[in-house]
């Protein structure tokens, strides 16, 4: 009995790691946007939800192959991210921070409602079921392993992009000092737009990975949104590496907590942990000073 229990626990831990990769990808996109533009997109997970609908529609309704639907979904959400910046964030760039937060909250309502109008409240799925991988006594879904690998790959690529390319350097520079960069001849509005598109693209990629594992419905963003920005705050808003670490910590709470109790209690534990951590290390997990 004890033996079986341990194996299920190990499976929960490993599934937590797999979930962590996906959450890390979402957190990276949100963190990148915050680090550069200094606005938290409360509606970030809703972009992902729209992405899942895009892929579902292209594959199931329009009958395109998934190999076309996935890249198209990523591009569409990247465009949506750029549009979001251009039409919603740009006008409030100089407004009160609270108004900036709220306006993205308005987008949350809007995207959720428009998905309801267009697609209805039914659960949709793309009808692709990937097999399970069995390693010894452990059981993993291939979709999860795949999404973990792709998410980690995307995070690595982003890291290389930020550290090796000119544009990446400009992005890092502008997140360090917003006032000086324009004086150095960098056009911040272009960087902002690029970053928003990149952040959107990551939400689109997350949508590709999620659509393999979950059914789509208009409220699915709500089950990932709060988690994503808790992760970003826990890692230190704008701190890309902190967000990466925090994603795995959070995923363990959800997965193992959900294993011992029910899924909601996993989330409750994760949120409670978040609140405690805020008081212990308000600047983020990896901060040195208090």
């Amino acid at each position, binding site marked *: 009995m004890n033996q079986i229990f341990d194996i299920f626990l190990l499976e929960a831990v490993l599934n937590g790691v797999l979930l962590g990769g996906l959450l890390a990808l979402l957190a990276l996109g949100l963190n990148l946007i915050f680090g550069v533009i200094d606005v*938290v997109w*409360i509606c970030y997970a809703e972009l992902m939800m729209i992405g899942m609908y895009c892929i579902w529609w292209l594959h199931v309704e329009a009958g395109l192959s998934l190999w076309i639907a996935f890249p198209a979904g990523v591009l569409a959400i990247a465009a949506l991210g750029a549009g979001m910046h251009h039409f*919603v964030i740009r*006008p*409030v760039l100089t*407004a*009160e*921070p*609270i*108004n900036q*937060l*709220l*306006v993205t*909250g*308005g*987008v*949350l*309502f*809007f*995207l*959720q*409602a*428009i*998905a*309801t*109008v267009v697609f*209805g*409240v039914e659960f949709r799925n793309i009808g692709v079921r990937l097999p399970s991988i069995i390693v010894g006594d452990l059981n993993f879904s291939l979709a999860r392993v795949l999404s973990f690998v792709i998410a980690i790959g995307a995070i690595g690529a982003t890291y290389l992009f930020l550290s090796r390319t000119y544009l990446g350097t400009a992005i890092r520079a502008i997140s360090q000092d917003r006032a000086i960069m324009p004086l150095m001849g960098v056009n911040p509005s272009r960087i902002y737009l690029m970053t928003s598109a990149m952040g959107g693209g990551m939400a689109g990629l997350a949508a590709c990975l999620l659509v393999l594992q979950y059914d789509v419905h*208009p409220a699915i963003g*709500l089950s990932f*949104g*709060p988690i994503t*920005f*808790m992760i970003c*705050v826990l890692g230190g*808003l704008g701190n890309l590496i902190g967000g990466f670490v925090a994603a795995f910590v959070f995923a363990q709470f959800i997965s193992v907590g959900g294993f011992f*109790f*029910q899924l*909601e*209690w996993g*989330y*409750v534990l994760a*949120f*409670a942990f*978040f*609140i405690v951590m*805020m*008081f212990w290390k*308000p600047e983020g997990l990896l901060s040195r000073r*208090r």
Partner: protein
Amino acid sequence: MNSRIVFFVVLAALLAAPLTGIGKYPLHLMVMGLLWAFIYTSWSIMGRLGMVSFGHGAFLGVGAYTVVLLWNLWGISPWIGAVVAVAITLVLAFMIGYPCFRFRIVGHYFALVTLALSEVVRLIIVGLRDQTGGSLGITPKSAMTDGATVSISALQFSNKLVWFYIMVGCWLFALYVWRRVDQSMQRLALQAISEDEDAASSVGIDVNRTKLAVTLLSAAMTCVGGVLYAQYQLYINPETVSGIGISLQMVFGVIAGGMFVMLGPTVGAVFLLVLSESLRVLIGNEILGVDITIYGLLLILFIIYMPKGILGAILARFGDAR
């Protein structure tokens, strides 16, 4: 002086309005408008002083669920339930507020921490589904036996008129509190704090205590709002009384009306209510979500083009420096 006379005339008209025999639906709208005005004003007591909470849904949820659960499970009167609810809320607000203010969690961070709190409360309500009914919501057991229409001990009244006057009383109380905070030394202190905490504490303001006092007050009043909501609607579910949606809606309401004027939250409450009801009536329920689409769109436009809110913009235009 002049504005005070206007205020009392309007108040008298408001109090007399239901007696002219308006229908049940308009009366219901007035009750709901006043209830939300009460809750929004409670929120704005702390919001306007730079403590923007996205977590007031937590306090609303604690208020609503505590009274209903105590009543349904053990038959404890909502009057006692309300006291228990406020006590729980004060503990919760203290638990969140004290460390936040102690460790200087402000701005985005404060908003997101409080948002986490409201999600925790919602998830706990859903998680305790054996007692709370989970996402399906819960209905307080009716105390109306043998055709009775009033049960004071159960705080249930089938006559909406009673509720109307209760809500007017609460709303006036909230405005009174708003004004008291506005005119007190604390307000000056808090405004100084919201502009520069270090400077404020250097001139001898006890920053943490002042912020905490306002937070507890605002949370407790919101909790009472939750109690009233549950007792009036006689149906609550986790989405309507806690979680992100309702917490954001409160902030929206206040911003839409105007955060820095006394009647701003009231204007916001009336505006949101009229907007959502008219959208519901105009569009109907044939296509799900159209009303919320327009609602969301309007909120975005509002924040972009009218950041001071309706009343704030009107007052700014006519130069009334109240």
